[in-house]
């Protein structure tokens, strides 16, 4: 724990004029007695202390107030505006973070999500008072079924990983219903998102890793060898995490089905194939969609997301409840009466606000528009790949889908101190967010680039220019790259110290907030 004598200097932010200003924590800004909002007084001039005594027995009463910040509204606004200026975001500049679909979301979708008529509906009000929300959700269910080719959708899961968990639970319930408790293994490619094995394990499944072949695809022989009467399911992302479409997808799903297993589709990369292929047609039984990623909810610094699950007839009975349904008179209701359904996965019904933005996005684009979204995403990725493959090593040479991978092999051949992390950090000096690095784990020194459909050719060209220049710097001025970033508000962060001297709470590790 850090000593106050060695307290590091406060971080600074560079403003538009290049001046630096300190960004203290809220606790350091705090001064006793300040408050950022005016609130209505107690009714009938009641006294706080007397009221407290009358409603709460002594033993339940708080004796020491929590050291929450005491700041004026201006100080609070300045604090967060200053903090915000330390972030890179899509609205600032290009954000080619592979596997994350960092696309621009039309602000009209936020307008929909921010309508008070939606925001102020309590989830426990009688459903007659929430027909608009239910109608919108019902419409979204219908559109998602259409998009994926499945017959049923539940909007309940709160994020992609949550959807995976739901899907795995449904698969488990299905096998149990068949009286088959011996199917305990879930097959996951070695290139899969970490959430896949984690979700399977949370359902009590054993995870069996399938090696990828030299073309970055599922190795059919490895798959065949792994299949057995213990196989509960396979979890696949298609296009996969190196940006390649599994050409043998129909054989893969057929092999798994013949072995008695089910097929789970991780919808993380749906952005590549909208209007080109439906997931159900590929032979999958159940999937989740990342509506925040493929459609429209900005990522918010890590969330919220939303991860609806879609399923075929076989798994439909197990979808988490409730689902939104329509009566013959046109009104909507929440159907809890689904005897085989998984129970509830989250508080109430789903991340409604995120789902409404997804509906807005779908209505905004329409079917043809979605197809164009995927086409543009794939075009942008292949264009970038073509422009960069001379400079960077390209492990897989096929046409990619919406994202692709490169490595720093050429740069490391010249100077073995250079690595992908250094190149990524140097990109920050050019104003770009780095690609996803060191994922998937199957290729060393990997970077995964996903430009998305919303970027212009001019932006892609600027990115290419930066990447080529950095490769040149790696050769001619390696220290410039190795010490990067140079222009960010803070320089390379000591992540080792962050674990060894764990500091997760201001008051536990720093002097008391100044001024109090």
């Amino acid at each position, binding site marked *: 724990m850090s000593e106050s004598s060695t307290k590091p200097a406060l971080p600074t932010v560079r403003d538009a004029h290049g001046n630096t200003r300190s960004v203290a924590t809220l606790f350091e800004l705090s001064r006793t007695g300040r408050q950022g909002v005016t609130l209505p007084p107690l009714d009938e001039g009641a006294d706080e202390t007397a009221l407290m005594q009358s409603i709460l027995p002594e033993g339940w009463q708080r004796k020491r107030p929590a050291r929450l910040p005491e700041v004026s509204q201006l100080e609070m606004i300045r604090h967060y505006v200053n903090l915000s200026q330390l972030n890179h975001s899509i609205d600032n500049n290009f954000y080619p973070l592979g596997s994350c679909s960092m696309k621009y979301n039309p602000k009209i979708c936020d307008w929909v999500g921010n309508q008070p008529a939606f925001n102020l509906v309590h989830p426990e009000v009688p459903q007659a008072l929430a027909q608009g929300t239910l109608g919108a959700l019902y419409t979204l269910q219908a559109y998602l079924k259409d998009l994926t080719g499945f017959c049923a959708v539940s909007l309940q899961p709160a994020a992609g990983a949550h959807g995976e968990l739901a899907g795995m639970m449904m698969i488990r319930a299905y096998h149990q219903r068949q009286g088959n408790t011996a199917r305990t293994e879930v097959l996951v490619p070695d290139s899969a998102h970490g959430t896949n094995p984690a979700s399977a394990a949370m359902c009590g499944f054993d995870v069996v890793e399938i090696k990828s072949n030299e073309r970055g695809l599922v190795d059919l022989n490895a798959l065949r060898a792994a299949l057995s009467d213990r196989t509960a399911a396979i979890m696949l992302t298609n296009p996969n995490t190196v940006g390649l479409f599994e050409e043998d997808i129909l054989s893969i799903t057929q092999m798994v089905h013949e072995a008695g297993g089910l097929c789970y589709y991780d919808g993380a990369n749906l952005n590549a194939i909208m209007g080109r292929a439906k997931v159900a047609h590929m032979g999958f039984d159940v999937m989740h969609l990342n509506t925040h990623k493929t459609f429209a909810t900005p990522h918010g610094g890590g969330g919220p997301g939303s991860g609806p699950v879609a399923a075929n007839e076989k798994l439909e009975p197990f979808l988490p409840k409730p689902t939104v349904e329509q009566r013959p008179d046109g009104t909507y209701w929440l159907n809890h009466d689904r005897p085989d359904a998984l129970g509830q996965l989250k508080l109430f019904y789903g991340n409604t606000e995120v789902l409404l933005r997804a509906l807005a996005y779908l209505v905004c684009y329409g079917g043809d528009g979605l197809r164009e979204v995927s086409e543009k995403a794939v075009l942008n990725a292949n264009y970038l790949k073509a422009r960069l493959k001379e400079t960077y090593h390209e492990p897989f040479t096929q046409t990619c889908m919406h994202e692709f991978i490169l490595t720093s092999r050429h740069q490391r051949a010249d100077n073995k101190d250079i690595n992908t992390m250094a190149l990524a950090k140097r990109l920050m000096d050019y104003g770009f967010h780095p690609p996803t690095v*060191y994922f998937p784990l199957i290729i060393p020194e990997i970077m995964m680039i996903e430009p998305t459909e919303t970027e212009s050719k001019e932006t892609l060209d600027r990115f290419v220019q930066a990447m080529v220049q950095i490769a040149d710097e790696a050769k001619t001025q390696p220290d410039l790259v190795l010490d990067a970033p140079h222009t960010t508000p803070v320089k390379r962060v000591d*992540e*080792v110290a*962050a*674990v*060894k001297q764990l500091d997760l709470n201001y008051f536990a590790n720093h002097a008391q907030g100044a001024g109090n």
Partner: protein
Amino acid sequence: MAKAEDYGIPEGTKFLDTHEYILFDEDSEVALVGISHYAAEQLGDIVYVELPDVGEQFEQGDTFGTIESVKAASDLYMPVSGTITAVNHILEEEPELVNDSCYTDGWMLEITVNKAKQLDDLMDGEGYIEYVEKAAV
């Protein structure tokens, strides 16, 4: 080819292909267990080591603990069957000892060896160095 002593590997140390080492003392029939210099280097700055309690018994190949760097976590495997007689609690506060001196101050377990014959199947120092040099290509 490099020699075992170039890496500070004490004479008689045996290795598992998952990079755990065991140094068996025939007189006392106790052994020290840790991870190799190569594994420590591959992991980078080690920030956490989770070790079992004294008295726990393990079979050869069982997971006895975990070792972590900032961006990686690896299971630790038992080189031979045995019972834990001591663990290196200093590693809880100073896990970097594994990076600095894995064969001495960075030891992890002291165990009594139940089946000394299992030691015969493990690689010796020279064999291990050959093994990791091959893996590095």
